């Protein structure tokens, strides 16, 4: 039984699939345009009251979410709008992106709202393809900075930043400059999730490349001399990554593994690691001593959006918009019960009128780089390729 023997079978199956997908995408195309065409503008222009009325008419709404905290949101939504049945799916971002794209292509039933991370991939695979549409609730017009309205509405910001063990280093972060991580002192003592395997970490290293000038300046500041680029290395960002990998950075498979490695109490010589700032709230529960190295130069890492979009094929376009509006939080200082699941120290509300949660650095003192999904999408492929050549 050889591969050769299977060729005729494949040859037979290929046209079948092509025909099938052709049929299905043809179907999808028509419905997509209908839903997305004139309707979009009509719903976008609705006032809150009109939206509620239309949503209650529709009677249901389906949401895909990359976080299971959506369950709590859904409960609050049910309390607020008992007439609208909300169905929540908990699907990780990369699966969600694939699922939304496939459903759109097949014209299959799909969600009304997508709550998704992995912004650069969302940009290229969903927004450019017209699978997801932005909706900015009218009441958010004034309170949401422009960068959080595009390409989709951002409801909160999460992080991938350098953290240390505050039990072992009670006087503050043991490093002041990212370039220290490439020195002998930290050889084999820096942990992060493999950027070739996880989108948010790839976004982080991509940002270092995009901010090559800042990285260059930081080197000068740390070493007291200008950075010499290796042959074939384009800029200071790439040079940092090359040096970090050469300094035996430890790659692991999950943020939890980083947290455990960096944060576990009782260590004499804990490593440093890039992880999620808000995981610090689990210190008590998990026996960790995680703390952010917030003042490290040029920046401790990145801050990136979790975004909300309406699907082009939404069956319940009004309810979809109502849910997005709901998930942006109410008018109280902490966003109220609808926003509560996301109001945690270490994550930051996208809205400028909400107070930063207590227990973490205020946003303005937190130097992490905000990413630009579109710019990031343009170069992250190159960065991933570069990393593959230096391992």
């Amino acid at each position, binding site marked *: 039984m050889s591969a050769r023997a299977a060729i005729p079978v494949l040859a037979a199956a290929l046209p079948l*699939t092509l025909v099938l997908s052709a049929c299905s995408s043809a179907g999808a195309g028509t419905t997509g345009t209908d839903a997305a065409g004139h309707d979009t503008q009509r719903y976008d222009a609705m006032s809150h009251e009109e939206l509620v009325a239309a949503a209650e008419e529709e009677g249901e709404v389906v949401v895909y979410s990359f976080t299971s905290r959506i369950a709590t949101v859904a409960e609050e939504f049910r309390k607020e709008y008992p007439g609208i049945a909300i169905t929540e799916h908990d699907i990780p971002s990369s699966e969600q992106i694939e699922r939304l794209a496939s459903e759109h292509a097949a014209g299959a039933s799909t969600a009304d709202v997508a709550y998704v991370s992995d912004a650069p991939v969302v940009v290229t695979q969903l927004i450019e393809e017209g699978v997801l549409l932005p909706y900015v609730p009218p009441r958010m017009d004034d309170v949401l900075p422009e960068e959080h309205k595009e390409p989709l509405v951002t409801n909160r910001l999460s992080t991938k930043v350098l953290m240390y063990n505050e039990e072992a280093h009670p006087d503050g972060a043991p490093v002041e400059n990212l370039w220290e991580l490439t020195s002998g002192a930290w050889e084999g003592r820096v942990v992060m999730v493999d950027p*070739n395997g996880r989108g948010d970490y790839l976004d982080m290293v991509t940002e270092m490349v995009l901010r090559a000038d800042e990285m260059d300046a930081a080197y000068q500041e740390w070493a007291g001399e200008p950075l010499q680029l290796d042959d074939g290395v384009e800029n200071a960002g790439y040079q940092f990554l090359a040096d970090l990998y050469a300094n035996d950075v430890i790659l692991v498979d999950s943020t939890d593994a980083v947290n455990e490695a960096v944060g576990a109490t009782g260590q004499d010589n804990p490593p440093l690691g890039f992880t999620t700032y808000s995981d610090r709230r689990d210190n008590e529960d998990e026996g960790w001593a995680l703390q952010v190295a917030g003042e490290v130069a040029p920046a401790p890492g990145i801050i990136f959006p979790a975004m909300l979009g309406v699907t082009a094929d939404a069956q319940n376009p009004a309810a979809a918009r109502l849910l997005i509006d709901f998930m942006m939080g109410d008018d109280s200082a902490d966003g109220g019960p609808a926003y509560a699941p996301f109001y945690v120290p270490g994550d930051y509300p996208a809205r400028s009128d909400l107070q930063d949660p207590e227990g973490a650095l205020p946003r303005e003192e937190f130097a992490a780089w905000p990413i630009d999904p579109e710019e990031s999408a343009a170069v992250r492929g190159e960065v991933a390729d570069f990393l593959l050549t230096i391992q």
Partner: protein
Amino acid sequence: MTSRWSRALLNPVTLLALVVLLVLGVLVAAPLAGLIGATVPAGAGGTGTGTSWRDVLASPMSQNLFWTPLRNSILVALGTAVLSTVLGGFLAWVVVFSDIPGKRLIGVLATIPFALPSFALALAWTSVFRNDRVGGTPGLLGSLGIQVPDVLAWGAVPVTLTLVAHYFSLSFVIIAAALASLGGDLIAAAELTGASRLRVAVRIALPAVSPALLSSFLLAFAEGVSNFASPALLGLPVRFQTLSTRLYGAISTGDTERGYVLSILLVAVAAVVLYLGNRATRGRNFAVITGKSSRPRLVRLRAWRLPVLTLAWALIAATTLLPMAVLAMSTLTRRANSFDAGFTLHYWIGASDPGISHGMAGVLRDAALTTATGNTVALGACVALGAVLLGMLGAYVVRRHRGPFVTGGIGFLSYVPFLIPGIALGAAFIALFGSGAGPLPSLYGTFWILVLAGIAASIPYAFQTAKSSLGQVSYELEEAATLAGAGTGRRIGRILLPLSARGVVGGAMLVFVTVVRDLSLMVLLVTPATPLLAVQTFRYASEGFTQHANAVTLIIAAVSVTATILARRLQGARRPWNA
């Protein structure tokens, strides 16, 4: 010529072959074709850019993206396949032929590792061998002050060994079923020559079940090459990358096309292994269930009893009891993976407490748990039934059909689904059944699309077990039924199925366990209306609720073990004539 063709088409085996190929075409070949299409540039009939092939095979990245991971994958998969088959074969021989005490219990326990998620075995490994390379809390040996070298803590060795601990149990199920079909004559005749027991086991009993050894090797190889959890957990810290970690890495960082190229290459590697494996046993007859019957007999181990007993229980302790204990403990520790903070039943039965796990209540308080368990069992049962039926029919066609294209096609398509990434399989199913395109019904959002996807993903178990157990049934038994006037359906149902029941039930069990355990593609297809246990574990794990996730994993293991015990009962009941 026309009549010749129409007559050939009316031949039941040919008809069956067409049906099986059609089903496999939709379930496997179509997703595979989609996979290939996505890597071919739009100008050449595909939907991709086409540059991924060059990136993977001939670019400065190739070494780290493909060649080294390829070498690592083959190393790990070969090690897994060989060791799993050897250990599984050994335990199967102990349980079927030896006279050691407690062998029934060994028989049940030996099937458990397969039911555990591979991360549980990797976790068990780190709980003992973790050293200070990564930081964090050291493992048992480290905390005793023993320096564990990196080679034992991370990389090829632990990855291979944890996979073996996982998949030897698969080999055990397949080989035990085959050994149980050996008549006593074969063994007695060999013993009469004065050969030692070991010699009889190695030279007579095992070669007589070559098809089962081959099936076990092939399945363990495919599992070894496609497993993601073990190399990700134990390989990454020393940058030990396999094709599977590279493949999932590419997909989850948004470069699906490159991921698909890697998975197509993985399919090609598997096809080569399948071809070589089949060539090794081609043209030989392994029918041991013949029309001449004899009763099985036990081997008296005498002086070998203690060593064999010790070895068997050591294996069970290391692969079943330890991981189970680690998993169970991890649901009871207040802090994940740490015994210092004390123990609690909160993660099982506790009410919502804002101070613990962000207020997540214990898993047994989750109303969805019962529904999810019910759904999971129903799904597992339906998939097992469907996959076994398809696998049986496929294996029957391969047995009876002479055309190399037909048998090769069925063999290939039934082997590779492991290697198609779940995300690609899921996407293909959405494309095929999403809106009922063409002749296919719109099943999207229903329970049945999960069943179909489950069948597609688990057909390798069903087909390989059916093939190896059908290979044991001599042709004459079927021909005797033919001459008694029985048609194809009746022969399969009344003669072949009962005679291969041990292997087929074993296959059904493997399918059931796989479906229940973890099927990543379900995340793409599942709906809130049909919650599944595996998806729930995922939900907990993704939020860092380790204890909750492990508790659900333990429930899954319990469901799997129950199914295993039931299957063994059924196997016993199906063979009263020589039980």
